[in-house]
Structure formats: structure tokens, C-alpha cells
């Protein structure tokens, strides 16, 4: 689990309740008051705690037998994916660190399930380690202006739930079960529509 914000907490809650045995949680940040509107594993009394510790505390309350590995680090060049990780949820909140994570997954031969949200919109795609469709290809040409994203709890829960289901697809059926490899799911929660765009690998 890369990032324990609005998406990451929703994905964790779904996977732990579904019975997933071992999760590796990565986040460098601490719980803030402003997180409580959408980050569903945290409560007011958690403000100030490291997110990995606050999330672990809640996940153990949900299911004491879950195995959790906690990593208090920022995703940046030079850090490595845990060698046991077969699938990674990208729940980060900025593009540069998402690209770093994508490259780490390629090197570690791990599947990446990318999710993002903005207001009542969202997107999900799955990147296979040997695919030439990388996040950096999909986002090629995008500007990196720093931006505060409007994040809404309901949107995070919808996008996070879809990411969790895609991870369950992988756990139950392997790569053949993945719904969004070479596809980008676009979610519109104004009119509750979803559309899948096919992604063509670069030559």
C-alpha cells in the first residue's frame, strides 16, 4: 500500500476485511485534522500519529490476525519495493512520486494498481511489470504544477473500492483476472458513469 490517504485507507480497509493475509504499508506522513473528512481509518484522537501506526492500530482492531509491515518512508528514488510484494496499490497524491513507484514496480516485477481522484472524478489503471504502457507514457506531456487536489470521501471510497477489487482479482485469478491492464477506467460520479479507454502500447 503506497500512500495511506483517502484512497489508501479505503483500499486497506477493504482488503483486511476481505481476509488478505499480509499488507506492507508505506507512508511518511502524520495524521492531520484535515485528513479526517475522508481518510476512513483515522479518528480525531489519531491526529499527530504516524499514518502507518494509526492505520495499523485500526486494521488490527478489525482483524487481529492480519500481518502488517510498516514502512515510514517517502516514495522516492533509491527506495525499493519489499521483495515479497507481488502487487502494489498506488494511492499517492502527486504525479512525480507515482512515476517513481511505477519504475520501482517494473524493476521488482510487481503489478501496479494505480488510482487517482479529483472532486467527483477518478481513474484506475493496472500496469503489468513487463508492459511498455507505463504511467509515464500515459501521462506524457503533463505539467507538474503543484496543486492541492479536492478530495471527497465518497469519491475516495469508490475509487479505492475498485482498486481493492482489482487486487482481489489478482489474488484469486492471477494476471489473467486483472480488469484494467492496458485499460484506463474513468469514473464520473456526477452522473455515475464509467468508461474504459483502451491503451495502446508505444512502439
Amino acid at each position, binding site marked *: 500500500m503506497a500512500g495511506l490517504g483517502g484512497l*489508501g485507507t479505503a483500499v486497506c480497509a477493504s482488503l483486511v476485511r476481505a481476509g488478505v493475509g499480509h499488507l506492507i504499508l508505506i507512508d511518511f506522513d502524520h495524521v492531520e485534522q484535515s485528513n479526517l473528512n475522508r481518510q476512513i481509518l483515522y479518528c480525531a484522537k489519531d491526529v499527530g500519529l504516524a499514518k502507518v501506526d494509526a492505520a495499523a492500530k485500526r486494521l488490527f482492531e478489525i482483524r487481529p490476525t492480519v500481518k502488517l509491515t510498516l514502512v515510514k518512508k517517502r516514495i522516492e528514488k533509491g527506495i525499493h519495493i519489499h521483495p515479497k510484494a507481488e502487487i502494489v496499490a498506488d494511492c499517492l497524491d502527486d504525479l512525480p512520486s507515482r512515476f517513481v513507484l511505477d519504475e520501482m514496480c517494473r524493476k521488482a516485477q510487481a503489478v501496479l494498481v494505480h488510482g*487517482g481522484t*479529483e472532486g467527483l*472524478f477518478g481513474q484506475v489503471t493496472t500496469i503489468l511489470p513487463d508492459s511498455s504502457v507505463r504511467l509515464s507514457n500515459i501521462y506524457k*506531456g503533463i505539467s507538474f504544477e503543484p496543486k492541492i*487536489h479536492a478530495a471527497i470521501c465518497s469519491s475516495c471510497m469508490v475509487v479505492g473500492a475498485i482498486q481493492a477489487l482489482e487486487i482481489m482479482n489478482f489474488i484469486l485469478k492471477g494476471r489473467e483476472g486483472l480488469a484494467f491492464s492496458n485499460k484506463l477506467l474513468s469514473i464520473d460520479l456526477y452522473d455515475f458513469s464509467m468508461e474504459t479507454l483502451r*491503451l495502446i502500447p508505444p512502439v
Partner: protein
Amino acid sequence: MAIKVKIFGTLRLKSGVKEVELSAGGSTKRLGQILQELGQQRGLEDLKRLGSLNLSQGIPFIIMVDGKNYMQLRGLDTLIQDGQVVAIFPPSAGG
């Protein structure tokens, strides 16, 4: 058959539509021209001024032509003909 331009994400709020059809008139049109036409038609300032932007610094949208990022083609000079699908969306990068 026309060129189909699909609009996603928060750009739908600004444009008021999810899809627009434009014609290449039986020939081809530059991608940049199509996007500027869309900008004029739907009052999208970012698209209207696309021609004057420095693309090397990036733009706030992902643009795809039949599932390929436009930067992997010929950028805004990519030629589009009737029947092709252009998708444009600002990324939902928050988490």
C-alpha cells in the same frame, strides 16, 4: 463519420459536455487545430491558447489519439482523420 472528441474529468464541468464530434471534411486536421476548435466551441480558454503554450513544459491535460498519448505520435502536429477518437482529460492525481 466524424472525429470524436471525448472529454473526461473536471474538463467536463468546464465544457458542459462529454463528447463532441468535429469534421475533418474528408481530409485530415492537425490535433492542435481540433483542440482549438473545441476550445472555441465550448469556451475552454486552456484549449484556445494551446497553440501558444510551450509544450516542453507540459500542459494540464492528457491527450490520447486512439489510445496513444499524443506525445508518442507527432504532438499537436499529429494528423487526425474522420473516424478517429481523441480523448482529453486533466488527470485525477489526488489520493
